[in-house]
């Protein structure tokens, strides 16, 4: 693992200059590798907005013409080219999946359920793959992703891994379902970093996985852990997760001690655990404290609609940071991430300490265009930009949760925590 580096790359500065000068006015002119640059996380929000504004307008224009079933009515009174400032952007309506009585927003779920293909822009010339969110209630709404979209997201996704200290030569094992978008992206990110990626085969259980971890000298474990109440769901309880790996290690210490749980001398092969899913749940902390001796744990917020959105740092590498566990730095690029609240007919950023809707705009996307899309998550704005002692400038959010508590319960029990 490598220590953190906070310097903004010169290439990033050059890119910023080119965009602001109008030399780059189409997101496709940006090399996907640019989304792996740290600059996105170390410049001010003002600068991030300025860089992405041309492409926000671009996607709004595309949305109106190429996804009329979703944006046609939605943007009847919106003129993309008139969006010139953040205040203008705040007037762009938030897109919701379901009708929201509180805000008067109209949802698109019925349209998408009736004909999922409406989610693919009419002007998308590339071949695409529709990825469905495993956490959706009922029929999932697909997000169409092209090969270039994939490349951009994976480059963006690689940033948290670098902040965690991962580098060439590291070896990671992940238990994600490789038919899910997250599972595929993780594999590619690891390879992009130069780290070896060990997969979980469908038929493998905890014992085989632990043996693979030993055989391949794995030091990073990427897995999930549901809340304790979700373990009652037999299907999820039977899957592989942190609990089941610990359980097998405890039952066969002669074979598996020292890999995930410490051996008699306190040694442990795994140095970092990335726990995916909705949040790092209290049960995961309990397991880590009681059985693992407090291995550094971190997470990345993302969904099939947009990866990545936010991440928490490696506590061991950034001990002074306030961005540990479920306190997450926003990750701008290739998506524009906001936490907003209704203010009159606008949706404006929340203030520090306030809770608001998590929305994202996929401004560098060939496939499904999400513009200020609110999937139903809320978050609390914890720290303004520059306030986190870890050195990463981007703001920090916390307490990401489903707005609908009932949906949260169902998600926790049945949802995507891909075990």
């Amino acid at each position, binding site marked *: 693992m490598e220590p953190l580096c906070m310097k903004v790359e010169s290439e990033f500065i050059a890119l910023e200059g080119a965009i602001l000068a109008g030399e780059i006015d189409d997101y496709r002119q940006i090399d996907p590798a640019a989304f792996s640059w740290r600059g996105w996380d170390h410049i001010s929000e003002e600068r991030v907005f300025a860089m992405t504004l041309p492409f926000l307008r671009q996607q709004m224009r595309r949305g109106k013409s190429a996804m009329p079933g979703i944006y046609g009515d939605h943007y009847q009174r919106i003129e993309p080219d008139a969006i010139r400032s953040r205040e203008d952007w705040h007037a762009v309506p938030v897109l919701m999946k379901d009708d929201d009585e509180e805000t008067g927003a109209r949802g698109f779920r019925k349209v998408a359920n009736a004909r999922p293909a409406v989610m693919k822009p009419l002007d998308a010339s590339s071949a695409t793959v529709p990825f469905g969110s495993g956490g959706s209630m009922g029929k999932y709404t697909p997000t169409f992703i092209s090969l270039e979209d994939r490349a951009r997201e994976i480059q963006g996704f690689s940033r948290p891994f670098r902040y965690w200290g991962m580098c060439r030569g590291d070896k990671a094992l992940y238990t994600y379902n490789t038919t899910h978008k997250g599972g595929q992206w993780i594999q590619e990110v690891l390879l992009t970093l130069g780290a070896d990626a060990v997969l979980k085969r469908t038929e493998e259980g905890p014992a085989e996985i632990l043996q693979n971890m030993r055989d391949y000298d794995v030091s990073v474990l990427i897995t999930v852990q549901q809340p304790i109440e979700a373990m009652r769901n037999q299907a999820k309880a039977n899957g592989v997760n942190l609990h089941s790996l610990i*359980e097998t290690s405890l*039952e066969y210490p002669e074979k598996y001690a020292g890999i995930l749980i410490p051996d008699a001398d306190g040694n442990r092969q795994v140095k970092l655990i990335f726990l995916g899913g909705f949040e790092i749940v209290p049960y995961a902390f309990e397991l880590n404290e009681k059985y693992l001796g407090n291995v550094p744990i971190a997470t990345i917020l993302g969904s099939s609609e947009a990866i990545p959105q936010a991440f928490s740092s490696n506590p061991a590498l950034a001990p002074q940071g306030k961005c540990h566990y479920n306190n997450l730095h926003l990750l701008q690029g290739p998506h524009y991430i906001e936490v907003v609240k209704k203010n009159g007919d606008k949706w404006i950023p929340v203030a520090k300490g306030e809770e608001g809707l998590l929305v994202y705009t996929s401004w560098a996307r060939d496939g499904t265009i999400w513009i200020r899309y609110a999937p139903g998550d809320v978050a609390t704005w914890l720290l303004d930009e520059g306030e986190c002692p870890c050195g990463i400038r981007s703001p920090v959010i916390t307490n990401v949760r489903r707005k609908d508590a009932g949906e949260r319960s169902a998600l926790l029990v049945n949802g995507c925590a891909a075990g």
Partner: protein
Amino acid sequence: MRAKEAPCLSTAALRGDVLKCPLIIGGRETLGDTFGGLSLFYPGYSYPVANAGALDIAQAIGSARNAKRTSLKTRVACLQKAAAAFSYRDEDCEHAVRMTGMPVSIIKEHFDSIPGILGSLSQSLGSRFTHFGGSESLGAEMLDAGFYKLLTPQGGFCYAITPGNDVRVVAMVAANLCYAGMPFIIKASKEDAAAPLVIRALLDGGFPPGSCNLLYFDSAAQDAAKKHFRIMDASRTVWTFGSDETVDVALRYESAGSRTYLDITDLMTEGGGDIEFVRQGFAENSFRLRDRLVTKDEVVDHFIGKNVLRHGCGNCAIIASGQFDEQVSEILYRSLGYAIGCNAAKSAMIVDSPHWIEQAADYLASLPVGDPLDPKTRVGYVNPATLDYLLGVVDGKRGIEVFGGERLSSIQARPLVARSREIVPELFGQEIPAYVLAAMDCATTGEAVVAINGCSGKNPRLSVSMLNVGDEHSRHSISELKAHAVFINAPTTVVAPYFHEGNDYVLRLSRERLVNGNRLMEWDYL
């Protein structure tokens, strides 16, 4: 070490201190997640019991499987040290009283006997079994010349599910397993707060931490069966308490759903195995398709492949003759008075002693009845459902003469003696824990033996005591009694260090699973 004489209400109880039933895994104690234990007899008395989770169970299994194995000499020394290290407090005694309903005087005696169980077992077993080999000897018992019964499986651990009606049980089980060198996981009853005391003593005595593991979990919870079968499947030996019927339902078999199939056995025979014949018949609907649908429950037998030790149910009995003297009265009390114990006597066959039953009834009626926490009390509390049932059985029944049995409260009655002219199965053939003695006059010892054997059911009685029965008769009868143990002029509740000879609680492999030929296979000791 002995506790001071227990007061009626302990200071600790008045203070609201609670007893705890922790997990002991790999030498470490934890309480963690708990569920509530409640007393049937003292409303409001509750205490936390550790509720082992899936990971606790995994850890216990890992500890037991990997426990260090020591030599017989070391184990014997550790048992001696454990006997010296064992201790208990007033609160432990009082807790057992509150949970069992038995008088504190009896409970205290039981606690005081535990060091003896731990310390003397080695000598008893050592004199019985032959050990081969040098420092790491194997225990074996000679069956026939050259044919040996190996005592200890060479791997794995024992899973023992112990009851809560006798504080000595865990000591007996653990001592046997420790002597045999077999690591164990004991799943104790939530009523049993003595179990941790025994395990601590064994660990203090020097047994390897992983060899003595104690778990509790809520047997009424939805995941209890899953936890139980997980331990069972990982174990090599299982030790259960209770009748075969109870154990098989509660601990052995697991429902695996059901399957439905079409029974065409007769058609295949009729048609000579010609599928076309069968098909044609169904097409013409002449073979009554619906009537042939069979649904069968599938069960998984978790005992398959295991060494199973069963401590069956008690239903102990007495054969008495001669005078009802002071010695006999004391033996009777120690048999009947351990009301809920597995080896309490429930029936008595009186041979040629016309006044024995009335004298016994008078004696039992004189016993002080009251709060079991009172040191003077000799008759304690009983499960109200049990009392309701038994008193209902005798109430108004023709041919039964009832002595005593006055109901004092929902949980207490004076001891009852029911003299019957004939066998009443509900009284003579069932093990129902209460201060109830079913008695019958018999002309001869042989008749008494036949009566006892006749209503013992599928399993032998745990023990039968013969009181003042002449030597000639007892020698002859012993061989015919369907009982695991027979005591001469001693209570049915005697706990030999290895408990009951017939049940053979020292681990053994069944004859069918053992050696081929007439030598010990696989080991170089011979």
